[in-house]
């Protein structure tokens, strides 16, 4: 009984456990890894992927997907950067513009998915390509150098907490509250569980879906802003493959690609940190740079495998028992202990 409930507990908290195991593995392999400073660095580097992944979680909870987040990051950062570089705009104005571009990008996705009833995968694959093309056209594929104020924000801190982490934490908490404590959030889960039922139940399915893509767009832009504030420059390759990391972070955190299942806290946040931890851990261990992606991929596969094992096991455990076995639990335990010694 006890062993079993422990097993269930472990399965239910698989992301957390995986996190601990990987942390301790790297920790034993490299002492420096365990220092508080390196953990802070990991979270700091994870913050931008984490923010993007939180937006992705909204979309995935509805049963959709947004492949365009990396492009969105790039385009919105380019606009913000050019405003500062060419028009001498203040970082605040640039920030507002950046989020506005992100929202607009999300709105384009939402329009095609909700109004034109196109498939999210294809829509966002299209905007992924189109958005990057547009951004490259604007910049003539040159990097956009950001003013030093941006770098000061990116490397600054508040009461000792680095700014990127601060933004990450705030976004995570707000997202968690929205998902768990607001109608919108609960409707996101309902739509992801069954959109037809949601429609029949009178839920504004279209509005809910559109909101999810808007949130995702805004989060992508915000994540991009946080990232470029650490880099000081918006390079043409900025944001490439971020969508994959964001999706991986959400899935590692327990989100389902079919919708309706997943959390921001701890789920996606842990997933994002986990990915960065693996990345940094491999650097710490001086693993060959060409081998690193392979190890990373292996860990992601392992995590998703664990997740699928977990889901099927939990489903079996949660299956309703229709009869009470008279020989279960105490009686078996007691008869066994009494019966065993004499036979031996």
């Amino acid at each position: 009984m006890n062993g079993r409930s422990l097993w269930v507990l472990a399965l239910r908290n698989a992301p957390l456990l995986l996190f601990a195991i990987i942390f301790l593995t790297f920790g034993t392999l490299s002492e420096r890894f365990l220092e508080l400073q390196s953990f802070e660095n990991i979270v700091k580097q994870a913050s931008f992927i984490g923010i993007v992944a939180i937006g992705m979680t909204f979309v995935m909870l509805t049963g959709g997907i947004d492949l365009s987040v990396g492009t969105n990051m790039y385009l919105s950062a380019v606009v913000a950067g050019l405003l500062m570089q060419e028009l001498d705009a203040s970082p605040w104005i640039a920030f507002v513009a950046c989020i506005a571009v992100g929202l607009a990008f999300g709105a384009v996705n939402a329009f095609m998915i909700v109004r034109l009833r196109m498939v999210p995968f294809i829509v966002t694959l299209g905007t992924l390509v189109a958005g990057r093309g547009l951004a490259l056209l604007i910049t003539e594929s040159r990097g956009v150098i950001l003013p030093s104020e941006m770098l000061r924000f990116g490397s600054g801190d508040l009461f000792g907490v680095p700014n990127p982490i601060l933004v990450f934490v705030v976004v995570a908490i707000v997202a968690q509250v929205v998902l768990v404590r607001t109608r919108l959030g609960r409707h996101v889960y309902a739509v992801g569980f069954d959109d037809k039922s949601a429609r029949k139940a009178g839920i504004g399915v279209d509005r809910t879906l559109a909101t999810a893509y808007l949130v995702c767009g805004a989060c992508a832009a915000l994540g991009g802003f946080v990232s470029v504030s650490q880099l000081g420059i918006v390079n043409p390759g900025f944001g490439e493959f971020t969508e994959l990391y964001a999706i991986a972070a959400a899935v590692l955190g327990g989100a389902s690609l079919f919708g309706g299942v997943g959390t921001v806290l701890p789920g996606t946040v842990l997933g994002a940190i986990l990915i960065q931890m693996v990345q940094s851990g491999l650097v710490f261990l001086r693993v060959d740079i060409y081998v690193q992606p392979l190890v990373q991929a292996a860990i992601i596969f392992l995590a998703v495998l664990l997740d699928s094992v977990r889901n099927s096991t939990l489903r079996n455990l949660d299956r309703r028992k229709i009869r009470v076995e008279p020989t279960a639990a105490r009686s078996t335990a007691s008869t066994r202990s009494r019966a065993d010694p004499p036979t031996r």
Partner: protein
Amino acid sequence: MSAPASAASASAASPPALEFRGLGKRFFGVPAVSGVDLELRHGEILCLIGENGAGKSTMMNMLGGVLAPDAGEMLIGGEPYRPAKPADASEAGVAFIHQELNLFGNLTIAENILINTMPRLPGLPLVNRRALRREAREVLDAIGLDISPDTKVDALAPGEKQLVEIGKALAADARIIILDEPTTSLTNRETAVLFELLKRLRDEGRSLIYISHVLADVLALADSIVVLRDGERVGGGPAAEFDQPRMIATMVGRSIDQLFPPREVGELGEPVLEVESLSQPGIVRDISFTLRRKEVLGVYGLMGAGRSELARILFGLDPHASGTVRVAGDVTPMSDPIDSIARGMAFVTEDRRDEGLLMDSSIVDNMSLVSLPRRGGGGLFLDAKELQSTALGMAERLSLRSGDPTLAQPVRSLSGGNQQKTVIGKWVIERPDVLIMDEPTRGIDVGAKYEVFTIMNALAAEGTGILYISSELEELLGVADRLLVMNDGMVVAEFPREAFDSERVLAAAFAREQSATATEASA
């Protein structure tokens, strides 16, 4: 007791709760509903009956704002009512409880009940969880469900889910509640609880439209009855004027003397499915029986007695811890459906929408599904012509009625009875040795049931052993050659046809409480 009377006298003065005037709807030019008049008073339960395809669903979908009528009008409380979407219907106090429940398994009971009106903290966009729980608790008390409102809906039994769905309607303060076949997955006790609740709601002055094929339920519940056939109203009036034969005669337009086709049982064949001491902890225990060729073996039990679970184990969908299943003498343990099918088993599942059919695929595609792996023989590619002709032959045999003679029509657009025939067709194309049918008549009308039974008889005559699982005792007694009664995961009684006696069967099926408490006491 005086409530219905006062409601009735009030309705004489005020307009009826709901009125249809010449309501009509066509699909592609074909009338689904035409010229229907209907009046639903305050504090009345109106039962709507008719065969599948008679237009009941279309009519209710218009009322629920899912479809727009193209003739006639609807009035609520004397005011014109033109819902453009389901939300308009709930706004107008109309709640539609569909056959497939609209619940979100990943949310709690409280969230489901108040999905649209989650109470908020004053001045904040946040859900007030304490108020949410309190309001849900009130609703749960009103429907007599003693479960924590924080329970996830996935963890509930079908009967409990049904009550939660009604709770949703109450929370939205619905004045007109439509229930479509609400009892199909309920136990007798759950049904009794539901009916008590529905009568109470009526006495509170709410109006209910109850759609069902279970005519005994209709008689027990209805104040008035409306009968539809081919989209038209062919009868109606106070329930007191109806009895079962009259209802059936009005529905089908001819009188059915017998609900079941005559069954001639000849000599039974050799054993084709032999089950010995089959056990799976928590599910079934020590099940043994033999099914012979040409036999229809009925399995009865209340909801949760383990009927469907047994079927799933026999078909290799779920594991078993001990015991043997021998199919046509072969004892190799069954591991998965591929294996089971290869050995001549077929399984018509109880949930045809989820498990039995690909709703958006054509009839031909659905029918070819099971036999496909064995029809690749000629080469790499499928022989579309052969599939088509096999499906056509099967459709004719099953008297499957499709609007499209080539059977390219998606299954979703068929009536329940024809969907069920498609499921059966897909399994029997390969002439199985053992056919397991789990609730094959659920939600289909009298005429379609008769046809399903006819198919069963024909298959049995050809040598198939049929395991016919059902919660409809009357049907089992009418069709089966022999009856097993399950209770608490065990086979507790067996009746040969000569000894069929509904009281004794029910006694065996209901013995659960005593046995459960007895086990508790002895432990």
